[in-house]
């Protein structure tokens, strides 16, 4: 049926209501003020550009600016210079403290799919790679130097120095022996620009875009001894998790790493990055002892502190027990020593998600390269791995239940 045309014309009415007029006036005022704000911002800039100020003043201005820049470079350079002067264990400690360490995942965090990235951790040595002044140095987790080499990273070799030679790039990498490649898992600093305060999502984005700006991804050459490569990073959806877990990679996998998208780079242990592994995606699920064998009982590396307390590497540390003074004296132990203990399963109790051990049996000192005690979450993960591991199915189920939550709110919204 043809719709009866409405009497669409206003009869003795103003064509526009006062409410509509108020709206329009408000919009006009807003855009005028936006223009003002823009103009102010620009005027500020353009007065710097154009005001025919006396040369002295301009000069002064520029000098100030230059000073400021120098100051900034100083801070970066100072830190680096100080670090380069450090020797031995001091250097090790300093570098070891710069690295961000994951907690072990003992429970799937909520909103995996929306808030987390996941990738397969390459098997190998975690290290910080620093390029500056024409040389590239990699240091493993305990701070000791792995390689000193020329690379195509910015200022990473004598051949291509660009910008201030002292401007640093610092990459968080895993060195993968079989293909002699540094896999970049994070970026801390690029050409002197700090990415500490950027979200993981952004840092990952920069890894990919910056890597392509240099030829650091090229095969090795005289001025570029090791290839650098980005790892494929996924959103932790079902598909992403599946890809990271069972997708093929050019490297041998050692578990999965989960990064909260919004987390900044933060030195030390953080619950915003999580490590997880099972037999499918890692060869080393259960810790081995000093001889590389899986012991019958779970081992724990703890640090001896004052009054004989035995603590984890967490901040604040978790106390797992204590040694009596007499024993310490007798065994010639000192505060700060790392000690390896065996834990009897039956003595372990879980209280409010914390692990408590009744009896700790000293097994000996750990490998000399160890710089830190185990973390609490690592102890828990190892305990779980021996008894009731968190399985890939649990992670999948967690993502699915989040999906369902999302869907169900959708339905509500429609009603």
């Amino acid at each position, binding site marked *: 049926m043809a719709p009866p045309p409405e009497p669409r014309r206003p009869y003795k009415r103003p064509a526009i209501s006062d409410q509509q007029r108020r709206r329009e006036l*408000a919009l006009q005022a807003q855009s005028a003020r936006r223009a003002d704000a823009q103009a102010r911002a*620009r005027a500020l800039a353009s007065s710097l*550009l154009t005001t025919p100020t006396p040369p002295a003043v301009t000069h002064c201005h520029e000098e100030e600016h230059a000073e400021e820049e120098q100051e900034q470079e100083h801070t970066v350079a100072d830190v680096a210079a100080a670090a380069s002067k450090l020797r031995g264990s001091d250097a090790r400690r300093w570098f070891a403290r710069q690295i961000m360490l994951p907690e072990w995942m003992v429970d799937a965090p909520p909103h995996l799919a929306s808030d987390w990235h996941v990738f397969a951790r390459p098997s190998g040595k975690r290290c910080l790679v620093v390029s500056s002044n024409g040389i590239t140095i990699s240091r493993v987790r305990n701070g000791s130097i792995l390689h000193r080499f020329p690379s195509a990273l910015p200022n990473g070799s004598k051949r291509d120095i660009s910008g201030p030679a002292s401007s640093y790039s610092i990459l968080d990498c895993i060195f993968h022996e079989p293909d002699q490649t540094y896999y970049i898992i994070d970026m801390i600093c690029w050409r002197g620009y700090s990415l500490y305060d950027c979200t993981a999502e*952004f840092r990952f984005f920069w890894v990919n875009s910056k890597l392509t700006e240099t030829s650091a991804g090229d095969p090795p050459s005289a001025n570029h001894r090791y290839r650098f490569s980005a790892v494929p990073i996924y959103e932790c959806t079902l598909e992403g998790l599946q890809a990271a877990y069972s997708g093929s990679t050019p490297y041998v996998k050692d578990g999965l790493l989960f990064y909260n998208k919004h987390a900044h780079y933060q030195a030390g242990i953080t619950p915003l990055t999580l490590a997880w592994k099972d037999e499918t995606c890692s060869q080393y699920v259960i810790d081995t002892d000093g001889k590389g064998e899986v012991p019958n009982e779970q081992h724990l590396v703890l640090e001896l502190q004052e009054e004989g307390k035995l603590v984890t590497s967490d901040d604040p540390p978790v106390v797992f027990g204590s040694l009596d003074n007499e024993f310490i004296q007798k065994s010639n132990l000192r505060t700060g020593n790392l000690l390896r203990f065996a834990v009897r399963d039956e003595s372990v109790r879980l209280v409010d998600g914390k692990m408590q051990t009744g009896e700790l049996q000293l097994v000996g000192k750990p490998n000399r390269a160890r710089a830190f005690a185990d973390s609490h979450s690592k102890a828990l993960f190892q305990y779980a791995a021996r008894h009731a591991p968190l399985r890939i199915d649990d992670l999948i189920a967690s993502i699915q239940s989040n999906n369902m939550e999302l869907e169900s709110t959708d339905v509500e919204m429609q009603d």
Partner: protein
Amino acid sequence: MSLDVTQVLLSAQSADGAIRKHAEESLKQFQEQNLPGFLLSLSSELANEEKPEESRRLAGLILKNALDAKEQHRKNELFQRWLALDAGAKQQIKGLLLQTLTSPVASARSTASQVIAKVAGIEIPQKQWPELIGSLLSSIHQVQPNIKQATLETLGYLCEEVSPDAVDQDQVNKILTAVVQGMNASEANSDVRLAATRALYNALGFAQVNFSNDMERDYIMRVVCEATQSPEVKIRQAAFECLVAISSTYYDKLAAYMQDIFNITAKAVRGDEESVALQAIEFWSSICDEEIDILDEYSSEFTADSDVPCYYFIKQALPALVPMLLETLLKQEEDQDLDEGAWNLAMAGGTCLGLVARTVGDDIVPLVMPFVEENITKSDWRQREAATYAFGSILEGPSADKLAPLVNVALNFMLTALTKDPSNHVKDTTAWTLGRIFEFLHGSALETPPIITAENCQQILTVLLHSMKDVPNVAEKACGALYFLAQGYVDAGSASPLSPFFQDIVQNLLMVTHREDAGESRLRTAAYETLNEVVRCSTEETAPIVMQLVPVIMMELHQTLEAEKLSTDEREKRSELQGLLCGCLQVIIQKLGGMESTKYSFLQYADQIMDLFLRVFACRNATVHEEAMLAIGALAYAAGPNFAKYMAQFYQYLEMGLQNFEEYQVCAITVGVVGDLCRALEDKILPFCDGIMTQLLKDLSSNQLHRSVKPPIFSCFGDIALAIGENFEKYLIYAMPMLQSAADLSAHTTATDDEMLDYTNQLRNGILEAYSGILQGFKSSPKTQLLMPYAPHILQFLDALYNGKDMDDTVMKTAIGVLGDLADTLGVHAGPLINQSTSSKAFLEECLASDDPLVKESADWASIAITRAVSG
């Protein structure tokens, strides 16, 4: 499924609420559990001749609702759901629907044809029901008139649902042939002829090609004109509706038929039933609309190459058209001014007369004035009212030179009539005419000697204030007249002639708002709107009186919050009143907050006002929400950084406003308020930015939100970035990709019509304002490098805009500004990029040579910044 569908469908129409509810539940459950089964049983019900008419009709209605919805989001969902159904089930349903077209029961046929059209609307664009049109056309040749009628009706609905480009020309030709044959006088059955005429109305949009062919067009026009002479009133009305539609769709093809059409319409206006006569007048109103649009385009030099020429049909018809319209003015209904929905011959004729005046300008004056002079003093109120209305109608269009002498003579007469005429009807129209005089012939923009002088101003005010005590409909028009009287003095400076009477005016308006009968004829609304305009146009000398108004309006608002246990109706009335009061406060805030002399003392009230607004929000109603939101934007601007102390409490409502997809005006206003807040609070808005940005990003990705809100959201990104500077860093990864994809889209949109082009340019402007704010926000920050990765894309966007050649001056100004911002913020890093970009240089030169001072200013600045970046 053992559900007795017939019984449930009948129960669903039961007078007993409980039974009805239960039946509706069962239907809903059935639909949710088994959609194909549900649709199938409904179509079987509709097709089944043994079932009662009521259950069949409801079955059809539910089917229709399962295929289409008003709301776009829901509509898409229903489309997808239908497309996903099992093909066999769809085939069966469609078969049953087509079968129903042959039913002897008229309502079943009619319902089925609507459902078929809905299915066609989904499937034909997907090329999924190719045989439908063919099979419908084959039944046109059926002997039984009821089948023929149902088929034509279906074709009509189909043309309404399906877009013309989804049907190929061959089928269009066949549809039109069938429809026009059905309309022909030789068609003996009037139901068939009516169905065909109504179908043509919908099919006109398909007839582009046919209307370009002289023979086919002649044939269609002849058949339509003949149908206006049918003995059946419904057919005559439907035929005139077709003529109205043709007048706007095929304006440029009408020259050859205008004489005939004039004769037909004049006959209908003078002698036919009102429903037909109204359509005949509408034809001329519609021609006026077309010519006003075309002439508007002619006068704006930028689009002088309008592709539709003006045929000046109205000008040519004028000598005959005007007398015909003047006659209609005398056919008023007794109480038409009291009935909001009234629409009759006199109203339509007067409205058309006003449009004619806008179309032809001065030429109408000599044709109307004799009628005015002859009738305005007659004893019959109809003649006096018609004369006044005729005079009021021609006040927009003709030049002030032509009108001013007439108005000078008429003004006194009008003022007297408004006080003394015994007829409310005449007083209503007189007050309206005074309003038109003030709207079009009063104000500093006019070059003619002023109509209102120090001498007559007081007299005018006395009459208007007096009339504000008259019956509601007259009082409402008097308020309207005062509104335009005040508006004319907006640029009067410090010595507004209204100032001496200001207190009086305000008091009288407040009295009107308190009238017991202020709810009638939207009198209260008119009084507040007039108060707003009086305040807006007031000057510094009356500021103390406006200041006194603050506690008065606050008290009124406070009183609305005291009422408890209101019925739904009362709640609605309260929220309307709150809207008016918040609107009034908004205007007062802008006025007093905008003058240095009053700002400080006004802000003493800020805490109390804000408290009231928050309480209004707590009442939760969308219209109030919007008005209070607007007022808060004004308050934030006036209060500046001090507004920060309200943020903790206000934030939840801000978020609520940003989430209001359904009432997009509310969302748009709230986005604007975010901008106000950014400028007021600057970096103090930072703690709220995570929430705001999240919401804005959600809004942008929503397909439910009205598109008009998206450009301001982009601009709002710029506002935020400018306020929080480098702290915007963490939003870059979210905002930039959105800006980039919107930029790509808007750069490569080929606008098919003006509305689309307009929107595209708004979108571009929003995106550019975002870039501008972000770039300036990062200026002088150590983090400017973060923007480098985005610079190439921004430059590509500017290149694309320049090469696209369809941006307006606003976009041009913003775009060249962004180029400057890029150079300014990124400095020497941007230099090489700008040098590489394909058209930066040409773009800048074009802007530097622009006639538009704003474009030029922006370009001058950009040029300095670029020179420095490139050379530095």
